[in-house]
């Protein structure tokens, strides 16, 4: 395959920046010409995938568009119609399909997601709040000068800081961010367990086309993509979801149910997720967390479920087993290689450590962003079939214990064995620990495509 041109791909796609603070701005365009002039001004500011040999920049900037945004930018109809159906519809219209009903339905979303049409997302990541504010101020100036767009929504997010240092913990207390897939040609520190499983048990990177349009994918072809080629190549699709976390409910539920569970509260939580709080996979260490595994990149994602078909180490319905089944469905990992997503994002809201008071109403959660070449085949599939449903795991209608839209009726079964610290255990009446508060589907173009859009040079054929 051809070598990736990192300067043409937005940096956000190729790597997580590991910068501690971020601000996501949501824009609306009124006039195509003024909007395009804004994008022209932004072009050289967009962070590419080029390596940072001179150290991390103070801030980064990336941009993506909804279908409505591309319409507002006056792209030709013939091009607009070649975008996949789910992207054209937008996430709100797909609610029934991906299970965003009940507490997650659009009528409960934040106002800007419920009402305004959102045309573009601008992601600013920065080293510090000052750098963030400076970058935002620059952006606002540009917006005023070009009168290119209005900001209709804004979301701040930041890594949880513990003892003065940014961590990758999320609000329930778990270290997050494991398992982003390896792709051919994308340079990053790869770890065994992130790619696809080969027949001999080793791990290989996934085809580039699972992340980037214009490259061969795991099905041995170029993924379905909008035309013209130049608009789609080196671009990808992004799913943005604001996931509110009901911290009080989560803690209370665990407290109540762990009282009857032979393994104790920490283990029960680990059974829900599939990892201990420090990230140790319970498949590798079923009885206790183990920093020697969690902090070792050759081990922390290096496991399969083939030796645990009964779920006695890692429950069949546990979160990590649901979203990345590895070899659990047989046929090596062939049935799941085309269902992988790259996750970006940061928590938002005040962190409350274990023991500190917290309520569900407080604004906290995680900004979840998934990058994939095909939203319906990758993100939507995982959400619809593996999180809000359980048939592939032979679990009928059961939902993901952590993320599922339970509505108070959910059930999670911890498979066990005859040892007293690992008994079979059923958790019923699962509430929603996580609630959706908004989001949409975006197209993250390459730098070339961005230029084409900015100059109004998109030509369908």
């Amino acid at each position: 395959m051809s070598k990736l041109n990192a300067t043409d791909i937005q940096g956000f796609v190729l790597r997580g920046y590991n910068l501690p603070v971020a601000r996501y701005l949501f824009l609306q365009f009124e006039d195509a010409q003024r909007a395009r002039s804004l994008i022209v001004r932004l072009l050289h500011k967009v962070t590419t995938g080029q390596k940072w040999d001179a150290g991390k920049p103070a801030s980064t900037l990336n941009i993506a568009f909804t279908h409505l945004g591309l319409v507002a930018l006056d792209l030709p109809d013939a091009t607009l119609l070649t975008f996949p159906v789910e992207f054209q519809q937008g996430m709100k219209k797909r609610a029934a399909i991906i299970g965003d009903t009940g507490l997650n339905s659009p009528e409960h979303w934040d106002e800007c997601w419920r009402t305004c049409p959102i045309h573009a997302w601008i992601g600013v990541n920065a080293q510090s709040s000052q750098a963030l504010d400076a970058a935002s101020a620059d952006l606002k100036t540009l917006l005023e000068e070009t009168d290119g767009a209005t900001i209709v929504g804004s979301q701040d997010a930041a890594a949880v800081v513990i003892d003065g240092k940014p961590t990758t913990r999320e609000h329930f207390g778990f270290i997050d961010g494991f398992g982003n897939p390896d792709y051919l040609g994308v340079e990053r520190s790869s770890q065994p367990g992130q790619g696809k499983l080969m027949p001999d048990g080793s791990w290989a990177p996934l085809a580039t086309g699972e992340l980037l349009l214009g490259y061969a994918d795991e099905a041995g072809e170029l993924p379905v993509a909008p035309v013209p080629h130049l608009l789609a190549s080196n671009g990808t699709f992004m799913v943005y979801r604001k996931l509110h976390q009901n911290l009080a409910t989560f803690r209370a539920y665990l407290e109540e149910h762990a009282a009857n569970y032979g393994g104790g509260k920490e283990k029960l939580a680990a059974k829900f997720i599939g990892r201990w709080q420090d990230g140790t996979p319970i498949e590798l260490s079923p009885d206790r967390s183990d920093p020697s595994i969690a902090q070792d990149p050759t081990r922390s994602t290096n496991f399969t479920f083939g030796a645990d078909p009964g779920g006695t180490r890692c429950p069949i319905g546990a979160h990590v087993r649901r979203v990345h089944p590895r070899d659990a469905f047989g046929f090596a990992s062939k049935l799941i290689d085309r269902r992988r997503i790259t996750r970006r994002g940061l928590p938002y809201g005040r962190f409350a450590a274990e023991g500190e008071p917290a309520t569900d109403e407080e604004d906290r959660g995680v900004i979840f962003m998934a990058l994939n070449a095909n939203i319906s085949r990758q993100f939507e599939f995982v959400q619809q079939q593996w999180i809000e449903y359980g048939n592939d795991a032979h679990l009928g209608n059961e939902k993901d214990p952590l993320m599922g839209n339970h509505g108070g009726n959910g059930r999670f079964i911890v498979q066990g064995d005859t040892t007293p610290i690992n008994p079979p255990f059923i958790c019923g009446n699962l509430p929603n620990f996580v609630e959706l508060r908004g989001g949409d589907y975006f197209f993250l173009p390459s730098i070339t495509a961005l230029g084409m859009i900015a100059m109004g040079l998109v030509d369908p054929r």
Partner: protein
Amino acid sequence: MSNINGKVYAMNAVTPMKPWKTWILRILFFVLWNVKPLQNDLINLSFIEFARWVILPRNRFPYLGNGQVKEDLKYDYLLFFSNFNGTWNQYIDAFSAVLSNGLNMIWRWSEKFPGSVPVTPFKAYIAQVQFDTDYYYTAYPYAAANDLKSAHIVQSALDNLNQRAQSCTPEQFADAYLNFVLQVQAHLGETGEAPVVS
């Protein structure tokens, strides 16, 4: 008038075959039927409730007289009827990913079959040769093939436990019950509605 009823999808497909190729296919099906291990992958994919292939030779279309005009065809036809769980895309993706050799073996004798890999032209072919169901009934719309298999496992384990329960002490029963729970703990998924597809 829908292809879907609860968790199951009714797919119908008809493809033309040059009559000399039909015999090859018959032999292949015969082998597949009698050499059971060849069916293992199909069984392990576990989302088909029932499926059948029907070879319809060109001179075997039912002819009942009474004014019916007899058929005069060049091709034999292969009919395919599947009852599967999951979405149309999911079904074809899975087969293309892991059972492409088997699919090719059956459909390569059909005219203009493009091969089951890569998946996009394969899906285009299926869309072309698929025709829609007018009426679809299932006795258990809320249960997928996996649910059925699990249910039978639970029933059988329960019957065993019940037999023993009559004649044990409470302690013996507690032991037998724990073993029962371990036997069924991966088979208790709730049944219900299927995810919405569109």
